[in-house]
């Protein structure tokens, strides 16, 4: 029993260290000058703290950082709004073709982004919005819908009908019921979805690289532009990495419970 106990701790601590070292390396690289990184970031014999890496990197990727907010916030709100509207119909109304339409959405859960790249680029060019924020917001919205509808429809289905019926008796319109009753009582589900979707959009590279232009590129493309062809400047790359993980990390830490719940519902994304 004792030997197995030692063994358990040995494994736990090994895993902890292996998982922690890359994070620590990134953090140390971002706050130490390159002249010290070349002797090893773990070497603390002459450690200097500097903000120069952040200053330089921020001046390079500030625009991308702000762009990412301009993309990620609407790309989180819009799909949740229109998915919740549709899910209300799927969960609480009877109409011809309901189940067929619902399952058609859900079946598209696994369509890989790659398949739409070429046709969508052409469509967005024809619409005259290629390279703009609305273009990628619409694409992210489209791809968020299957999971959002699947998730919200199942959540709404569990809400007892009598709550909605009493409002109907009072003469409230369906939209009013949706807006004033359904959405407020669905806050936990909406928070789960919003967390998943925000992280997903914040971390996206493929769509951004394909549909956006240098003025609208988000942070993921911004950091990759810090890579140089020759010797990598780890101090700047690490600072860029740290800057780019701050907003998603805050969201993640604040809403971790909701995030886990979202994953549990069968998260297909990552």
């Amino acid at each position, binding site marked *: 029993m004792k030997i197995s106990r030692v063994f358990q701790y040995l494994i736990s601590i090994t895993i902890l260290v292996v998982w922690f070292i890359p994070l620590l390396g990134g953090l140390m690289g971002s706050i130490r000058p390159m002249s010290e990184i070349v002797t090893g970031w773990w070497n603390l014999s002459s450690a200097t703290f500097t903000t120069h890496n952040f200053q330089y990197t921020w001046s390079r990727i500030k625009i991308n950082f702000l762009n990412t907010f301009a993309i990620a916030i609407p790309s989180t709100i819009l799909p949740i709004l229109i998915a919740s509207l549709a899910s209300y119909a799927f969960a609480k109304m009877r109409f011809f073709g309901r189940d067929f339409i619902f399952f058609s959405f859900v079946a598209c859960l696994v369509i890989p982004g790659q398949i*739409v790249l070429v046709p969508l680029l052409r469509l967005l060019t024809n619409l005259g919005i290629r390279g703009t924020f609305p273009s990628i917001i619409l694409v992210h919205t489209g791809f968020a819908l299957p999971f959002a509808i699947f998730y919200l429809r199942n959540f709404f289905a569990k809400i007892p009908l009598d709550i909605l019926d009493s409002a109907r008796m009072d003469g409230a319109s369906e939209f009013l019921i949706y807006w004033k009753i359904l959405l407020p009582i669905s806050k936990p589900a909406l928070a789960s979805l919003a967390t998943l979707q925000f992280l997903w959009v914040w971390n996206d590279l493929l769509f951004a690289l394909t549909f956006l232009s240098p003025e609208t590129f988000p942070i993921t493309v911004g950091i990759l532009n810090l890579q140089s062809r020759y010797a990598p400047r780890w101090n700047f790359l690490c600072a860029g990495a740290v800057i780019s993980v701050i907003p998603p990390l805050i969201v993640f830490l604040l809403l971790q419970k909701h995030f886990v719940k979202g994953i549990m519902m069968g998260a297909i994304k990552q």
Partner: protein
Amino acid sequence: MEQKVLRQSGKALSPYHFFHVIKIRKKITPYIFIFPAALIFMTFVIFPTVQAFRISLFQWNGISPFQTAQYVGLSNYQELISDRLFINAAKNNVIWLVMFTLLPVLLGLGIALLLELDIKVKNLLKSIIFLPTAISLVVAGIIWSFVYDPDFGVLNAILKSMELEFLARGWLGRSETALFAIIIAATWISTGMCMVILSAGLKGIPPEIMEAARADGANYWQLLRHITLPLLTRPLVIVVALMIINSLKSFDIVYAMTRGGPFYSTDVIALFMYRQAFPFLRAGYGSAVAVILFTIILLIALPYIRRITERTAEY
């Protein structure tokens, strides 16, 4: 309800008219509710997906009007089968698939089991394994490239300090190690997801079953093999399906770490597709790759989708 209609319309209506208005309203309301979702979905997902199938039958540069594209039948697909770089990317993707399914799932399972035991560092372990889930694959690619750096990387430094200097090398610069180095980085980011799903599965096992088996004298490994793992089949199937699909779609982390190099040793299908369609301006050829990728993913995901729709139908 009737009174409301009356008020809205502002004039008296025959009882029959009322009934009619309400009925039509009731009938079209659901369609109004699903309309925005359907419109965006049709325009930005369904329509382009169908288009991709058509474009894959053409020779087209993706820039000039599609009318100038030349219909070539299935020749893009024929060319693919004999394209050595495509075969190479597909082969690498198979390695990805196997390793990227085994490593995070086994590690995630191991850690989930570890968390069931009474260990003091449990919460710290759980948090730190799950933390990378919030990080983008691009950032993971960068901090792991730093780990692998031949001169300033921590990995080679550790090897040197352990007197294993002969193992030290430029991990991403050599074709025999680059692919595995990237898969390790991808494992680092994905294990947390597997751990959380499997951990929830473990929590769902009724303790009475375990206690009964323990009372019958079963040891830990017997419990694991005959009770825990069989009861964990459903979450295991989910994480395996997730990892397989993710490995087929892998693009970001390879793009961030090596762009497919050195000598195409880390090339994967999604990256091959991107390169053909955009820098090389072979939109038709790239679409053929995308269609193949789509078909494989669909075949693998079909049971998964059927399962979640079944679960939905229970309501």
